[in-house]
């Protein structure tokens, strides 16, 4: 038995690690790199975000500029097979019935849709993570907060969204102006109705984490609950929060478009993707591209976000990582 150990002192020596320890996030990134869908999805999401952010500076046409002489133009590619179509380089993707440039509208609409999506997602995450952490950590709050979460989960969401938007439109419009009021309203109603899943997941994780030794150690040296949550618990629940963030972004974009589609969204001269799609449905026989272009943008963005979420879930799960 002792034959194998030649020098007992060597076993007691501290071994220098051959290379610096790899952080968790490098491992996650290495795993994510191999997920093609996540790479495409993330790439498309970054591309769309940059395009709507910087697009107005490159393509400087005003989206709300009415140009009645150039109304109802087709996209430039229609000229390839239909020589009689009204096309022109001044309107690369055509114009609507008031002559407003569709490319500019798509960029402006993307700005609105993405802004609503991101803001609503962040709001839902903050509420969800807050409720989850509090009810996971503080036993007294747990019962009532979880009953409240169950209650909100059993509310019929889309009908209530419609009710809320039609109800609060007027007062908020007066407070923040027609566009600002609608933005605040839509972001808050989507955020307030989509935090429940995050809260449940975070609560479950916190409940498991709080029994671990490092929390006991932190508590035994007198760390206050606030510090424990901020320094020790929150960094450990970042991964489930990130996965629900991607889901939340996708749902928020779709919900905003759905509200616009049903005619309770932003005011009529303020383009969003859902609104462009809804306005074009009446005349989609003559101008199918006006439905298809915003629809494709919504779908591709949501698809990209969903793929990114899928990849993130795989990459953040240490049981799957490395396979």
């Amino acid at each position, binding site marked *: 038995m002792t034959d194998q150990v030649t020098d007992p002192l060597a076993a007691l020596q501290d071994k220098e690690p051959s290379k610096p320890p790899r952080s968790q996030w490098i491992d996650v990134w290495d795993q994510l790199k191999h997920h093609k*869908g996540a790479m495409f999805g993330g790439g498309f999401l970054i591309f769309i975000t940059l395009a709507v952010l910087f697009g107005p500076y490159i393509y400087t046409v005003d989206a709300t500029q009415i140009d009645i002489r150039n109304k109802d133009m087709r996209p430039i590619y229609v000229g390839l097979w239909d020589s009689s179509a009204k096309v022109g380089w001044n309107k690369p993707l055509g114009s609507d019935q008031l002559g407003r440039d569709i490319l500019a509208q798509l960029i402006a609409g993307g700005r609105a849709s993405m802004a609503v999506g991101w803001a609503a997602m962040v709001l839902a995450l903050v509420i969800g993570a807050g409720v989850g952490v509090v009810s996971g950590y503080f036993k007294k709050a747990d019962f009532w907060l979880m009953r409240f979460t*169950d*209650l909100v989960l*059993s*509310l*019929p969401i*889309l*009908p*209530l969204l*419609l*009710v*809320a938007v*039609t*109800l*609060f439109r*007027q*007062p908020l419009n007066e407070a923040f102006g027609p566009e600002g009021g609608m933005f605040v309203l839509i972001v808050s109603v989507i955020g307030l109705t989509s935090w429940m899943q995050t809260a449940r997941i975070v609560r479950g994780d916190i409940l498991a984490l709080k029994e671990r030794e490092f929390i006991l150690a932190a508590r035994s040296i007198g760390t206050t609950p606030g510090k424990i949550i901020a320094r020790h618990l929150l960094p450990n629940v970042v991964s489930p929060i990130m996965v629900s963030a991607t889901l939340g972004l*996708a749902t928020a974009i*779709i919900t905003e*478009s*759905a509200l616009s*589609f*049903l005619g309770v969204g932003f005011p009529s001269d303020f383009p969003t993707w*859902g609104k462009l*799609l*809804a306005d074009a*449905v009446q005349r*989609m*026989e003559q101008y*199918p591209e006006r*439905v*298809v272009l915003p*629809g494709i943008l*919504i*779908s591709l963005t*949501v*698809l990209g976000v*969903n*793929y990114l979420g*899928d990849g993130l879930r795989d990459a953040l799960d240490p049981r799957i990582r490395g396979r």
Partner: protein
Amino acid sequence: MQTYIIRRLVLSIPTLLFISFAIFMLLQLAPGDPMSQVPLTVPPEVKEKMREALGLGEPIMVQYYKWMVQFFWIEPQVLIDHWFGTSFAEGKQRVISWQTRSPVMDIVVQRIPQTLWVVGLSYVVGILIALPIGIYSAYRQYSVFDQSGTFITMIGFSIPPFFTGPLLIVIFSVQLGWFPSIYDTTHVVTDWASFKVQFMQMIMPVMVLALQTTAQLSRYMRSSMLDNLGQDYVRTARAKGLREGVVVMQHVLRNSMIPVITVIALGVPAIFGGAIITENVFKVNGIGQLLLTALFASDIPMVMTLTFIFAILIVFFNLIADVLYGVLDPRIRYD
């Protein structure tokens, strides 16, 4: 199990009461005025009388109490009268829609068949498509079928119904002219030809909704099958010489169906409420469309009753899902 069911049923009463109160208070804040459609020539004092006739003059708590009495006490009596020909509800005030001045429940009962036909059928179709796809793509994980199936379900998951609806209309009704773009609810099926018309007009709305269901369910089915296929009992079943079909379709499938069935049960309330957009696209005058028009007309009793019915359905099917889980999986014990 029985005590569990009873406890859950009892617990659902305060939940539903609270939900109804929340919806009611939300609607009280509504700026919409049911008198906005009344001509301006009607003098204000007459308008005030009309408002009182609608029950608007009372304090909020009295209004809420009266709605509760009407919904929980009088409407069931109407139902009993209808079934057994009794006359409990004779002359009692029912929940009246402000739009049509007729009882809300009568309109709901008129609209439910359309919704059930289109949306319910799409749910069944979705389940029937989703389960085989999920089973097969889990069985042949990472095969071409699995890869393309995952991709297609991901697309179905991501494309919103308000895009697939118009897209299908453009392709199949405008370009190809195969199906009608508007669902005709007055159509009556009497013979083979009219059944064909009914079938044709149902294809598109059903497919749009079924795509969503299929996408969600087949993902669940796949991951649930994958969880079970790696278990030890599968190896045991194979080792004792069972045929592959028996192993997969009996041992693995039955265990994998447990979570999937609860997901199916949880999705049922969405049949009634979630199809608002599709009903709007294809002009199906079902429940969702009824809610939308009631909202725009600020018909508060109608909105209140409809949202509350949705809430009842959600609470009830949550209960069913939990109970089913316990019934199907003997490892789960609620007592």
